[in-house]
């Protein structure tokens, strides 16, 4: 098991103590919302501001040249993490949400025609639903939804039926943020290719592209975009120990090349005249304006930290905790786990009989336990399971069995209060 709480300053301070009381340690169980930051990331960003900060990709002075090198170096690290063919396939965005919006507004608006179909799953985050809804309003394309069974597992036989020659985009998450289900994305991409491969001779076979929302996967398991054969892979820096404000869109070179700019501005152009403007090649075509320079550098430090821990070790650690936590929570008779797929990542979503998730969240907070309560930006998922909201404990590599023991004890206490 990993033992890395010491690397995270916030996990080593005490909260809520007043005169005479020492305060409480934090049991942080909301890593699916955002992860805490290791000292190495905090110090890297601090040092960069103090010693190396300058604009990127335009300064002729050494400070800017060095900043540019560090900034672009993160791109190489991301490409390596994903096993991308080239760092040119790595677009900096502000987060998963912007990554998906970029694909919807650039690729979607250019290629979608009335009647074309976008396949989403029932268990998507709103960030992988609403951008597509906005695009269907502009293009006349329609959204079809892949159903799930009662465990929260996608029903692949239904997915197979939904895949037709009209399917142009499949957008699914790798791991559900509300349930923890690990979706069989490699198989789903293979099925999409079979059902609707690109055929230049046949105008009805325009091919479907597949976007994977990797917000909940990249810091928990090894992701190889070439092995998956994903066309797009989107994720956020702040859910993988990096800062907020920086995210990644991976896109296959040929597809990114075919896409128009999504936002216009500085840094994404080759030549601007009022008669005609030409654009940079990807990835810079999609990076208008001064970017989140220090956040990119911070993400680089987060990737180093991730490499230092090792994704295999993280996955093993979190899986052991998931098994432990599942057993612990299953022993509470009033508790119903929502999301019991055989393939699950480290997310425990649940309801307590007679206690609303918000009350659970507030009362656990008194014990120093931070969980998420609500619909997790996945209201269709809540509707599917017939609950308005759930409480969700989500794990990171810094969690340990003591965090889960505290959770179970806290829940038993709440049941007593509400009895």
């Amino acid at each position, binding site marked *: 098991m990993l033992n890395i709480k010491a690397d995270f300053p916030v996990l080593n301070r005490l909260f809520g103590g007043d005169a005479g009381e020492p305060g409480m340690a934090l049991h942080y169980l909301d890593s699916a919302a955002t992860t805490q930051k290791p000292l190495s990331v905090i110090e890297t960003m601090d040092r960069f501001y103090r010693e190396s900060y300058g604009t990127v990709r335009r300064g002729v002075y050494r400070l800017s040249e060095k900043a540019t090198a560090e900034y672009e170096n993160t791109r190489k690290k991301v490409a390596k993490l994903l096993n991308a063919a080239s760092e040119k396939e790595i677009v900096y965005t502000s987060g998963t949400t912007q990554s998906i919006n970029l694909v919807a507004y650039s690729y979607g608006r250019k290629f979608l025609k009335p009647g074309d179909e976008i396949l989403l799953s029932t268990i998507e985050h709103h960030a992988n639903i609403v951008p597509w809804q906005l695009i269907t309003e502009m293009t006349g394309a329609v959204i079809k939804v892949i159903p799930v069974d009662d465990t929260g597992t996608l029903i692949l036989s239904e997915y197979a039926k939904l895949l037709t020659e009209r399917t142009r985009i499949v957008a699914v998450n790798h791991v559900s943020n509300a349930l923890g289900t690990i979706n069989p994305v490699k198989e789903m991409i293979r099925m999409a290719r079979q059902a609707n491969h690109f055929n230049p001779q046949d105008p009805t076979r325009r091919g479907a592209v597949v976007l994977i929302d990797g917000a909940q996967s990249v810091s928990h398991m090894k992701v190889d975009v070439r092995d998956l054969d994903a066309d797009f892979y989107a994720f956020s820096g702040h859910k993988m120990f990096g800062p907020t404000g920086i995210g990644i869109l991976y896109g296959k070179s040929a597809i990114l090349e075919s896409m128009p700019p999504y936002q216009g501005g500085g840094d994404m152009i080759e030549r601007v005249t009022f008669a005609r403007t030409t654009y940079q090649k990807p990835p810079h075509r999609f990076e208008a304006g001064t970017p989140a320079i220090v956040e990119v550098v911070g993400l680089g430090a987060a990737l180093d930290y991730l490499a230092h821990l090792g994704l295999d070790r993280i996955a093993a650690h979190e899986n052991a905790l998931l098994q432990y936590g599942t057993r612990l929570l299953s022993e509470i008779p009033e508790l119903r786990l929502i999301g019991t797929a055989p393939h699950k990542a480290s997310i425990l979503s649940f309801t307590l009989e007679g206690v609303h998730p918000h009350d659970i969240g*507030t009362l656990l907070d*008194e014990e120093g336990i931070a969980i998420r309560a*609500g619909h997790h930006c996945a209201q269709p998922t809540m509707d599917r399971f017939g609950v*308005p909201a759930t409480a969700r404990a989500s794990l990171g590599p810094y969690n340990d069995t003591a965090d889960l023991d505290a959770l179970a004890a806290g829940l038993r206490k709440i049941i007593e209060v509400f009895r």
Partner: protein
Amino acid sequence: MSRSHELYQQVILDHNKNPRNYRVIPDATYSCEGHNPLCGDHITLFLNVGADGIISDVSFQGNGCAISKASASMMTTFLKGKSSDEAKSLFKEFHDMVIGDLDPDVQETHLGKLTLFKGVREYSSRIKCASLAWHALMGALEKQVSATTEA
């Protein structure tokens, strides 16, 4: 459980478990569905107001946490027999109390036992739970079919 002790008092827990006026008024003068978009909770408020402007019956149904349910339950018992103008000024007092602008310990209010909800001001994320029913009430009085805590 120190801070929460003030919020999750027996009275509130009791109203959560056995909410009063938890029913539909089929021929209600007004009804309004209140939403809290932050959490997805919603309640429907039913209101009968006589020609004299007096609230003769008020009830609710819906889904929410202990705070929103108890607040709705206690609000309905408190409002019966009051005029719609009184209800509007009570909304203002209640709202000011839960956001911390009105302290019932030092300032005079007309909120009676509803001052139990003053503890909510300590929880910025829960203020809208306590005020959801009140937003639905205001919506109903203004003849809206839906209201939101984001107004």
